[in-house]
């Protein structure tokens, strides 16, 4: 193909959109590498510390869209201290200085300051899309800057961020001339918004397809918004509380019926269950329903709602749906591909949870199921074996038994055989999270059968180093391994340090690895950053190599030790 002019190759490469494929293309030969890098517009960086902004800019001068991830996954569960890192400011600063015409920025688990948002809003004329997932560090002042300065903004999508809400007028900062919005999601904000400004904004945004409101937006505003935006495809309802006999509620019913394009529904952050019938007319079209923030919706009202959703492909729900409710899902949602069942009560239990029965019902009724996140009271091997038989197409299988070391309650055995069946049957499995009582045996199965596995999460499992070794030796495509509270020590850690260069990262906390073991990895593999996170600051007083390390996070990098680590992080 080398005798084709560059423009032809470039045109061909345009059809290659996945990051993996484009990365492969760039490795073929020098000329392909060059053409690929100049034509590359979208870059995904799974660990912001694996590369520097300067090198990114140098390689991809045509960059338009950047995705960055910061903190390790276990940061979601408070296992990573607050100021560990993941700051986006240096990236924005470097991009602003360069000639990059950034149009889209997608961040996950990063620290985003108001300063960064302000700089971002002022530095890129064509900036169109900001997506922040599980980020923190900013306030509504930063959002005001984005609203005010990004003249062609199409997308502002805030998902599950910790935002300091100054109750401002950030919504009012969208100028009258801003009519380009396609997607606006501020469901995670806690404060009031200027409802008039919101109504005016929606009125002048004819392309608005996705709107997710926060709980401060009351029902009567919702009704007005829906009247102005019947073209919506994705709706997140904030407050859904009203008197079912009121005028407003009648108006809402009419407004909802006009919204024939809605395929995705979420929110109900505050809900009066007796008002749900207004939603029924659009349920038949829904492909995604997210009720995981609506603990007020359960029992018969919930089941009735679900019975209307025959086309559902993705369902996110709380465990107050119960096994019975999952039975209704199994009977109704034959197109279901993804199910997430979250716990509704942090202190566990009682009647609010689901068991293995619900999962078995769904697996039997929904043959297309390929993605699962399931928080449950208990699980049995028999159930897992049945599920594996019913649904061999799992790509993601994440099971969380609320008591993390609970055995099969019927046989009192560990759940090795059950998970073994899952990995053996689901040949395309890419992501797996384990829980329950588990021995080294389950890891033997994983190493043997989980050939496509890319991400594995382990907690309170295994008997010995063998467990970890089975996984490291067997799973050739492993990219992310995160382990907590398992008896894995230096022997497992050091067996094959070269493996870690083929992975994005390894997290081990409350295991048996020692400072000496970690130092050894760092010595042998200069291409890895081996971080010891020591919040209790006990390492300060005792630098004995035999000391066990509380938290270790190692990742491959091309740019060596990061300079922004806090005091309690040592990079070996």
């Amino acid at each position, binding site marked *: 193909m080398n005798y084709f002019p560059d423009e032809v190759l470039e045109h061909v490469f345009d059809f290659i959109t996945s990051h993996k494929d484009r990365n492969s293309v760039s490795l073929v030969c020098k000329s392909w590498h060059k053409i690929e890098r100049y034509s590359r517009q979208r870059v995904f960086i799974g660990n912001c510390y694996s590369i520097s902004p300067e090198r990114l800019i140098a390689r991809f001068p045509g960059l338009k869209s950047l995705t960055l991830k910061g903190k390790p996954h276990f940061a979601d569960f408070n296992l990573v201290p607050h100021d560990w890192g993941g700051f986006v400011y240096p990236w924005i600063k470097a991009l602003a200085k360069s000639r990059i015409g950034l149009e889209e920025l997608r961040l996950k688990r990063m620290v985003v300051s108001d300063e960064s948002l302000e700089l971002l809003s002022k530095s890129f004329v064509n900036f169109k899309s900001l997506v922040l997932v599980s980020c923190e560090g900013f306030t509504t002042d930063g959002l005001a800057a984005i609203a005010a300065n990004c003249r062609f903004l199409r997308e502002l999508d805030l998902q599950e961020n910790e935002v300091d809400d100054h109750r401002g007028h950030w919504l009012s900062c969208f100028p009258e001339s801003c009519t380009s919005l396609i997607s606006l999601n501020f469901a995670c904000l806690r404060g009031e918004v200027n409802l008039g400004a919101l109504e005016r904004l929606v009125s002048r945004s004819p392309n608005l397809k996705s709107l997710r409101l926060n709980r401060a937006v009351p029902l009567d505003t919702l009704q007005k918004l829906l009247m102005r935006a019947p073209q919506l495809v994705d709706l997140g309802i904030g407050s859904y509380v009203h008197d079912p006999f009121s005028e407003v509620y009648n108006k809402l019913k009419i407004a909802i019926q006009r919204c024939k394009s809605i395929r995705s529904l979420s929110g109900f952050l505050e809900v009066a269950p007796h008002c749900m019938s207004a939603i029924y007319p659009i349920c038949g079209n829904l492909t995604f329903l997210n009720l995981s923030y609506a603990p007020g919706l359960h029992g018969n009202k919930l089941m009735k709602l679900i019975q209307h959703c025959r086309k559902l492909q993705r369902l996110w729900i709380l465990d107050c749906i119960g096994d019975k409710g999952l039975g209704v899902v199994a009977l109704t949602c034959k197109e279901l591909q993804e199910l997430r069942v979250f716990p509704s009560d942090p202190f566990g239990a009682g009647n609010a949870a689901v068991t293995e029965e619900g999962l078995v019902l769904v697996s039997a009724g929904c043959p297309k199921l390929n993605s699962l996140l399931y928080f449950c009271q208990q699980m049995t091997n028999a159930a897992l074996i049945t599920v594996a038989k019913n649904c061999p197409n799992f790509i993601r299988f994440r099971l969380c038994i609320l008591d993390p070391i609970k055995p099969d309650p019927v046989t009192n055995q560990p759940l090795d055989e059950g998970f073994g069946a899952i990995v053996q049957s689901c040949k395309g499995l890419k992501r797996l999270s384990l829980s329950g009582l588990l021995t080294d045996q389950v890891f033997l199965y994983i190493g043997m059968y989980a050939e496509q596995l890319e991400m594995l999460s382990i907690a*309170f499992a295994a008997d010995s180093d063998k467990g970890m070794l089975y996984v490291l030796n067997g799973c050739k495509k492993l990219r992310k391994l995160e382990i907590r509270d398992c008896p894995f020590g230096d022997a497992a850690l050091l067996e094959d340090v070269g493996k870690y260069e083929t992975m994005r990262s390894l997290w081990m906390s*409350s295991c048996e690895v020692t400072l000496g073991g970690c130092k050894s990895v760092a010595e042998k593999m200069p291409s890895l950053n081996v971080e010891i996170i020591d919040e209790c600051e006990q390492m300060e007083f005792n630098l004995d190599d035999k000391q066990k390390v*509380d938290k270790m996070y190692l990742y491959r990098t091309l740019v060596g030790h990061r300079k922004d680590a806090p005091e309690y992080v040592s990079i070996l």
Partner: protein
Amino acid sequence: MGKEGLGLEITELRLGLPGADSDSSHRCNVMIDKNEKKRAFSEISEDDVEEGNRKKTTIKNQVVGWPPVCSYRKKNSFSDKDGSAKASKMYVKVCMDGAPFLRKIDLGMHEGYPHLAKALEKLFGEALRNAESCEFVPIYEDKDGDWMLVGDVPWEMFMEACKRLRIMKRADAKGFGVLTSKEALY
């Protein structure tokens, strides 16, 4: 960071159960029962820890980061008794022995005890440093009006129960009537 100031208990990321002192004083972790092959959770009371036999109690929610639900979701989707989700602002008064005036902090802004400890140190750093080498104990007043030692119960439970905080001189603690969570039951 010096060890005077707040009692170290609050800054230890206790992955095991409160009340059980970690014998491997080098780390904060779940206690391992060496008699059993699997990792076991230690018992709630210190007395049982002394015993040889350990039952595997289902204390699934007293471990940091378990269940693995992200903190945003924890704050926003767990059901209250009255059906409404948790309030976003949970300001409580904090007083410290020897400090001239009280402060207020928002418990909802903190993810756990270590985070709270750091925030308190920021607020009272001056007073802590000026105090003459005495140790402090953080206590809180719960909904029943009892003064409890900070750190015993899971963070979420603490957030709900805490009405006010006090950083008390350890010397004054004797005979003050601070209850541990066990005593409060009787």
